[in-house]
């Protein structure tokens, strides 16, 4: 009896230990000749199927003998898993990245594909988010931006012209007063996670900062004490004080409670997204395409020109350890080919990086967004470090509750920005 107990204990322990050992092996994928492994977080979704089929077909035309395997990873662990692969110097040949900080922090593990994708340079937009020190590391698939959407039905109810929304801030505030009289709020705002302020500074950045200030901000030379930067935060506070925002903004989640407020007609405007969620296709569930408008940012500082803030959303990159970078780069090109991106736009509801795609079917809002891509600029908040963004979220909540001054906010943000 005792002997049996001991042996079973030994067995349990050895099994437990063996189990630990093998758990870390799963998910490992190394390339062999004639096969390319791709990591992403999209390929498991049903909407990505036709996109992948088109991309694979395009690649097959060039390399019929090479097999391509897509491995879908969960998004919340994606960069952790990728980090482990980079540490060990083994992993997928091609991998999906978010533009901006996520890819720029990891270019040491990537091959520059500038020369391979030269032909696509004109056709696709959003390259900046995948570029570091003049070298391109990934080809953009989607674009992510922060347009201001408005509900034309509420404009009509408030006796405003839905075809010509306000072009200056003063007129906009007056319009919002009319909208308030008609029983709706001006902005649907969700700032529980502190995301509302990010969209705010990016959506209104182009008409608050001068062109020179804007470019300096993106280039990393941010003057937090400039009057116009302070203005961005003053207006945020004013909008809260004047009750232009939906009630309880600090306890409302942006995803997706604030968008639900906009969709259900409780607020006239929302600063939303272009791709993935909180965008034109999402809103169409309740707001028909005819009722959904996209407006340019109203001019706050005289002499500024509104532009759409957007960056490259996601894009595929080539790993340093792949055996044949040229072949992998051709797969990246196939994943950004016109046919594939067209399928992605249609099925996933994203603004694809290919600006030649015909979007007239999706309604006027999308056409407006795509029309503004040419003059668009990178978004202000994307240029900030995650630490500064987190701090900005908390400070923005304090501004709304009135427990901090704008001067103190920019002082703290400047300190965080310089440290990071």
């Amino acid at each position, binding site marked *: 009896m005792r*002997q049996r107990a*001991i042996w079973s*204990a*030994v067995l349990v322990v050895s099994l437990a230990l063996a189990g630990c050992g093998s758990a870390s092996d799963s998910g490992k994928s190394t390339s062999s000749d004639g096969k390319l492994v791709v990591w992403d977080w999209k390929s498991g979704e049903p909407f990505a199927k036709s996109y992948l089929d088109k991309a694979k077909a395009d690649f097959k035309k060039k390399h019929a003998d090479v097999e391509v395997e897509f491995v879908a990873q969960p998004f919340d662990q994606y960069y952790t898993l990728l980090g482990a692969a980079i540490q060990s110097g083994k992993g997928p040949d091609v991998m999906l990245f978010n533009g901006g900080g996520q890819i720029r922090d990891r270019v040491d593990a990537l091959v520059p594909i500038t020369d391979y994708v030269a032909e696509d340079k004109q056709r696709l937009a959003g390259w900046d988010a995948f570029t570091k020190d003049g070298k391109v590391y990934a080809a953009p698939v989607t674009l992510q931006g922060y347009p201001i959407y408005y509900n034309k039905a509420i404009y009509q109810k408030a006796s405003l012209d839905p075809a010509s929304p306000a072009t200056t801030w003063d007129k906009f505030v007056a319009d919002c007063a009319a909208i308030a009289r008609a029983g709706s709020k001006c902005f649907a705002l969700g700032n*529980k996670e502190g995301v509302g302020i990010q969209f705010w500074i990016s959506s209104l950045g182009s008409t608050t900062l001068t062109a020179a200030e804007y470019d300096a901000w993106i280039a990393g030379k941010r003057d937090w004490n400039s009057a116009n930067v302070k203005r961005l935060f003053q207006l945020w506070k004013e909008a809260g004080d004047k009750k232009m925002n939906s009630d*309880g903004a600090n*306890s409302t989640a942006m995803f997706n409670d604030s968008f639900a407020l906009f969709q259900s007609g409780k607020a006239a405007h929302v600063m939303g997204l272009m791709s993935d969620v909180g965008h034109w296709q999402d809103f169409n569930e309740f707001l028909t395409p005819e009722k959904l408008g996209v407006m340019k940012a109203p001019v706050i500082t005289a002499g500024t020109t509104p532009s759409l803030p957007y960056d490259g959303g996601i894009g595929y990159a080539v790993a340093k350890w792949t055996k044949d970078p040229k072949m992998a780069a051709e797969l990246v090109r196939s994943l950004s080919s016109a046919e594939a991106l067209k399928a992605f736009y249609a099925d996933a509801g994203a603004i694809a990086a290919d600006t030649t795609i015909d979007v007239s079917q999706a309604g006027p809002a999308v056409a407006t967004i795509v029309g503004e891509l040419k003059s668009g600029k990178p978004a202000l908040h994307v240029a900030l470090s995650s630490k500064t963004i987190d701090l900005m*979220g908390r400070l923005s909540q304090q501004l709304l*509750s009135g*427990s901090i001054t704008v001067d103190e906010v920019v002082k703290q943000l400047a300190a965080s920005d310089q440290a990071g």
Partner: protein
Amino acid sequence: MPIGNTQPSVRSASAGRAGGAAVTPAAHQGGARPRRTRGGLRAERYAPYVLVAPAVLIIVVLRLYPLLLGVNFSFTGDGAQNGTAVGFGNYRELFADPLFQTALRNVGLLVLLLPLAVAIPGLLATFIYLRVPGHRFYRSVYFFPAVLSPVIVGAIFNLLLAFDGPLNAVLSSVGVDPIDWLGDPGIAMFMVVGVHIWATFGMALVVFLAGFATLDAALLDAARVDGASLPQVVWHVIVPSLSRTIQFVFVTTMIGMLTSMFGLLYVMTSGGPEGSTYLPEFYIWKQQGQMNRPALASAASTILFMIMLVVGLLQIKLLERSGKED
């Protein structure tokens, strides 16, 4: 191994105490010893170690070793300094971070609210024990929230406490201005703690009811005969009789508050508003997952571990003392 055929090897493990009576008299007869083989003796000597080995291995490999790795990791840097020793740099940064200070202050707040969290199930259990009308119904109803996951509880109260939610609607119907329950930094933490107590007091209630089962009913009857009022019965008879149970509930409730409020915080406030509902646990998750600062998170984990260690030692001490009192 010839272990199975030798004398009972449990003897040395349970040396002489409770097991003394169970050991066969034959084992103690002088004549039995010399006949044993040398291998049998050795097996007997090693058997206890073999028996505790699985438990020790599991604790060492899966608990202590990772713990030491984590503490070691907390003395290294993040990002570009990955892997290089930075001494107490992470700890200095932690104590300078107002957010972490808030998290520690909130731990203090939890300690202050602890008597309330213990008193509520204690009182309700007393009423059930005293058989108030409908006590059977209440017994099952009170336990019900304990089976819900924190995420579900959080989602329910998110709806109830929303600015345009039912609670504010009720308040406005009696003329009270709406309150941003989860958006006001002065209120949000109390709401989250309140919901946590609501969601978990069922477990403590069951422990209290088990304690009541050991209560001597004669004492209660005697008190009643002597003309004691209900508050007097509770204070002079029930509380002293249940001191061990109360201490146990104190400690388990404290541990529950420190280690299992993450789900509620994540769903209800995300640490906000203005960072007012941060707890060390949430801070660790944020630094590790969102800010890409695993080493800083390790330092915060080490501090949380220290806090838990103090609570745990306190628990042992309390239980030992109450054991002596009996």
